[in-house]
């Protein structure tokens, strides 16, 4: 009964909204100088709707190289999710739960994709609100193939559809990341409902605050190039809270809950590394030197983090492991995400090294301290890595340390701003996540039954087996 009501409400909401949009699609032809949607800092760029101001604003141009690059970047981020993240996570669970992880990643991403199209984009990048955007572009009303979105260079534009698609993959992957913490014990429907809610009340506001015009953290000058706070700290906190709320897996601490395929985990981690170039360098929105900087930082930081994790493991446990190397790569990628556009290559190496060591601690010492069963270490890697990266961004963006900032840059004051961003994200995400979990619990419950958990989610939730013996 509860499930029926929930789906009825959802269906009604969609129907009403869809009807309204279709009734209004006959709006005017492509707006000329509007679409100030992107995370553009330039105050002199055409923010006003009045086309008469075209004389003062630089002429809008679209470079095919930029467009092609952004299309490729979007595809690369999609690759990061399917099958990158799916395999990375999937290999880490027991074989009886492999398909459930693959499903959750793929379907969550798809769900968020649709929600992004309907209202996500509008709320994240529309308007100039302090915390959230507006619903001007609900159902992407007014956006056409000729609509343009700004880049960081005044006058240089990309098709708005591409920007929407690119940002869509970010929203999708953020929610998909969370499933790692409550893997092997959550109900499939509950994952979907939770992600839909959390996306709406945590991802969208934080994305707007950090990247949207008028956003609180954006206006303060917080540096988060590709989403250290928006994606990683955000997801990490939601994951950690989920691990607490759902409780430990049956047998945790007693039975062997070993990864069933570290081979696939490595494949997944490799796809993540490859795809991340789209995530980081694509966040530059143009194919130019800035993208080149983000690109090279993504290469070096990750390599350094792999080494750091391996060294750390060799020193503390005696052996460097494949899972460690794969995790190190991801930790480095997470940490360089907020920094890639503003730090120099040497700074990125240091960030990678620090992230490698600290995240190693995050999944060992810190994990024991926190006492939650964060199955796939979403907080240990993404949460810790995101926090490390966000703070070190403030340090290594300084020109004196190889970064792009100038003489008027103060590491100290930037660190305060970065810390504020981290704090807001940590608290907001955690509180919203907690509320969302509780709502889902009331509507449909969170955990599968004990028998289902023992038998495996593949068979009980999806009626399938991944591997036939």
């Amino acid at each position, binding site marked *: 009964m509860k499930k029926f009501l929930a789906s009825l409400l959802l269906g009604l909401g969609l129907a009403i909204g869809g009807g309204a949009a279709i009734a209004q699609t006959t709006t005017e032809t492509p707006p000329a100088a509007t679409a100030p949607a992107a995370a553009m800092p330039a105050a002199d760029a055409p923010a006003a709707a009045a086309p008469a101001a075209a004389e003062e604003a630089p002429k809008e141009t679209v470079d095919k190289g930029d467009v092609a690059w952004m299309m490729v970047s979007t595809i690369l981020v999609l690759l990061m999710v399917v099958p990158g993240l799916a395999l990375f996570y999937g290999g880490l669970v027991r074989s009886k739960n492999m398909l459930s992880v693959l499903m959750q990643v793929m379907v969550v991403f798809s769900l968020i994709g649709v929600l992004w199209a309907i209202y996500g984009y509008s709320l994240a990048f529309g308007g100039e609100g302090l915390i959230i955007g507006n619903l001007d572009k609900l159902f992407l009303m007014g956006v056409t193939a000729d609509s343009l979105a700004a880049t960081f260079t005044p006058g240089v534009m990309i098709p708005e559809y591409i920007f929407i698609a690119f940002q869509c993959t970010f929203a999708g992957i953020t929610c998909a990341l969370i499933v790692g913490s409550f893997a092997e014990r959550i109900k499939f429907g509950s994952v979907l409902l939770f992600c839909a809610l959390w996306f709406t009340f945590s991802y969208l506001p934080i994305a707007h605050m950090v990247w949207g015009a008028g956003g609180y953290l954006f206006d303060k000058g917080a540096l988060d190039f590709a989403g250290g706070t928006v994606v990683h700290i955000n997801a990490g906190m939601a994951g950690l809270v989920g691990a607490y709320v759902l409780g430990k897996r049956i047998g945790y601490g007693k039975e062997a809950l*070993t990864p069933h395929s570290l081979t696939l985990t490595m494949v997944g981690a490799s796809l993540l590394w490859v795809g991340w170039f789209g995530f980081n360098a694509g966040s530059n929105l143009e194919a130019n030197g800035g993208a080149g900087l983000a690109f090279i930082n993504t290469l070096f930081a990750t390599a350094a983090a792999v080494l750091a994790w391996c060294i750390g493991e060799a020193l503390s446990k005696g052996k460097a492991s494949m*899972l460690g190397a794969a995790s190190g790569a991801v930790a480095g990628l997470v940490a360089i995400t907020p920094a890639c556009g503003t730090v120099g290559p040497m700074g990125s190496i240091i960030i990678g090294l620090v992230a490698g060591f600290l995240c190693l601690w995050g999944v060992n010492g810190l994990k*024991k301290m926190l006492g939650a069963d964060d199955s796939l*270490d979403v907080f240990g890697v993404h949460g810790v890595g995101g926090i490390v990266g966000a703070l070190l961004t403030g340090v290594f963006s300084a020109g004196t340390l190889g970064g792009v900032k100038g003489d008027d840059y103060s590491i100290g004051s930037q660190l305060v701003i970065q810390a504020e961003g981290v704090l807001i994200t940590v608290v907001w995400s955690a509180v919203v996540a907690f509320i969302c979990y509780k709502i889902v619990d009331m509507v449909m419950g969170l955990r599968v039954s004990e028998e289902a958990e023992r038998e495996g989610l593949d068979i009980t939730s999806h009626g399938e087996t991944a591997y036939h013996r």
Partner: protein
Amino acid sequence: MVSAVIKPFKLDEVREALSGVGVQGITVTEVKGFGRQKGHTELYRGAEYVVDFLPKVKIEAAVADELVERVIEAIEGAARTGKIGDGKIFVSPLEQVVRIRTGETGNEAI
């Protein structure tokens, strides 16, 4: 019925030794077990697991009573390395043997 649990890499040697004494058919299963040989520790991020079980191979051969001693010697000789974990041989009485294709029983079925 002679069954033996041996180290996996010894399978080929034992098989040849058995052919040498006239055993024409065996059944082999992959098993895991432990005796005095210790297992190993696996480490996945922060989670450490002690794995007691080691992979072994179990051979079963139905042999005529007269052949049992020589079969035991053959297996022992081929499977021995001198280190802990070499395995064990078990001999148990076989009540009945039937060849499915022809219906032969007893010693003709072996």
